[in-house]
């Protein structure tokens, strides 16, 4: 466990070295927030509420979602590059689990993005717009559990696709397509409240709803106590299921791996 915490901390410090990157990250995040809030505002026009959802709720939804998707932004070509140049073999020799190490590094990088890109951008946003406060203090720890589960779902989906580079020449295209599906279907661009009814029904049977929408709804207090427990259970179920699938691909892939030359 200690080793993995070290990996996460190391990655975090790695990121700290690039000052310009840090500054640009804040500007980028702040501009993105500003622009999307403008778009939502224009969509709302003079309407106070649409389907019982007010503009501040949408704004809050967008800001939280952006923060989470910011935290999940790392080099998804990592495994492919390792396989291509053959350095993946070094990883097998190390006395740590490759998967957990990767996860630890991504969490380290995510923590950096949240603390140094997202929070400053959020403070800038709060200067010119009002967001919904959390519904209750008790809700916050519950929300953090939900966020962690959502993060794992997102991470596992990405990892599963990355393992396909054991079989495919390049996974760049598939990763791009995956990211489009995730960004639309998880509601990170247009909240799921506003999706057509049938699509919402279908999405409730997929892991996409569990990524951002569940944590946001808990934050806004849209779910009752029982519904919250159920939503968390659904998230945990997806994590378990995706874990099994990821493990299967990883085992099959590493067995098939052939590294040429050295």
């Amino acid at each position, binding site marked *: 466990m200690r080793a993995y915490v070290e990996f996460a901390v190391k990655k975090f410090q790695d990121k700290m070295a690039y000052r310009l990157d840090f500054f*640009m990250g804040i500007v*980028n995040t702040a501009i993105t927030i500003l*622009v999307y809030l403008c778009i939502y505002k224009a969509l709302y026009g003079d309407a106070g509420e649409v389907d019982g959802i007010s503009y501040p709720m949408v704004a809050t939804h967008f800001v939280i979602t952006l923060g989470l998707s910011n935290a999940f932004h790392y080099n998804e070509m990592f495994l492919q590059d390792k396989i291509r140049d053959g350095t993946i073999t070094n990883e097998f020799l190390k006395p740590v689990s490759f998967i957990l190490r990767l996860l630890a590094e991504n969490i380290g990088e995510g923590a950096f993005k949240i603390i140094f890109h997202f929070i400053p951008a959020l403070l800038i946003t709060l200067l010119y717009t009002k967001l919904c406060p959390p519904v209750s203090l008790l809700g916050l720890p519950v929300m953090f559990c939900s966020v962690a589960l959502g993060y794992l779902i997102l991470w596992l989906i990405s990892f599963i696709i990355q393992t396909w580079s054991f079989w495919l020449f390049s996974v760049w295209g598939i990763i*791009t397509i995956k990211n489009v599906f995730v960004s*639309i279907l998880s509601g990170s661009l*247009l909240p799921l409240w*506003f999706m057509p009814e049938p699509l919402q029904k279908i999405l409730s049977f997929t892991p996409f709803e569990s990524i951002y929408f569940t944590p946001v709804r808990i934050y806004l207090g849209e779910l009752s106590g029982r519904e919250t427990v159920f939503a968390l259970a659904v998230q945990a179920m997806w994590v378990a299921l995706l874990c099994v699938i990821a493990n299967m691909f990883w085992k099959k892939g590493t067995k098939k791996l052939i590294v040429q030359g050295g």
Partner: protein
Amino acid sequence: MNELKIALQSLKMSVRTRMQYRVDSLVATLAVFIRESANIIVIYLALLKFDNINGWNVNEMLFLFSLLFLTYAFVVSLFADLRDFSRMIREGRFDRLMVRPRGLLFQLILNNADLMASAGHGTLGILLFLISAGKVGICWDFATILYYLGAIIGGVLLQGGMFIFFSSLSFYFLETNSLREIFYWNMRKFAGYPISIYHKLIQGLLIYVVPFAFVNYFPAQYLLRKPDLINYNEIYIYIAPLVGIAVYLSSYLFWRVSVRRYYSTGN
């Protein structure tokens, strides 16, 4: 004539390179197409619920987007090397061009057409145009067609000019990617929507600093005349095609001045 022959030869080479990995190229084209469609799908779904965005309905929005994609399809096949210019400098590949008996910019423009991206953007642009062009109340006579073609050419030159400008900065600064990220790629994302919805500051950026507004918003306004045009000087919609030429020429001059400063990064 000789120049044209080189151009065709170079294009043939690009096609051949890409065709070495047929399936991979196809997947990449599809990926670009789907990635760019994401915004369209979102705005389509949003307008199912909200009906219009600052007075623009769904077809008018698709028309606005189509200009952005159609122009970019040309930009990415002509100016791909300038898009990735800072990497080119870092890897020292720029030196190679200097010993060849043709102009530098000429070589950069012809080299390495990113045909997959071009096909992805182009298909989407044509598709959006076909869906929307008949339904937005434009009377397609000789004058409008002429203006439309002018606007496309202007839009290509404008974005190409911006690529040349950002590339020229590489001669002064080591690292220009984050600048490009903020001022080019971010602004391009915003340009898909009617700029009147934005904060005044961003409108200013899109008109005067990174003038994407002249790639799609003002040309679309010439053809559509939506009520939010009243926020701007009407002359903008008439000069839109010319802005592209002006941006291209001034970027070209800046390039000429800057390239003299170049000394290799060494190896």
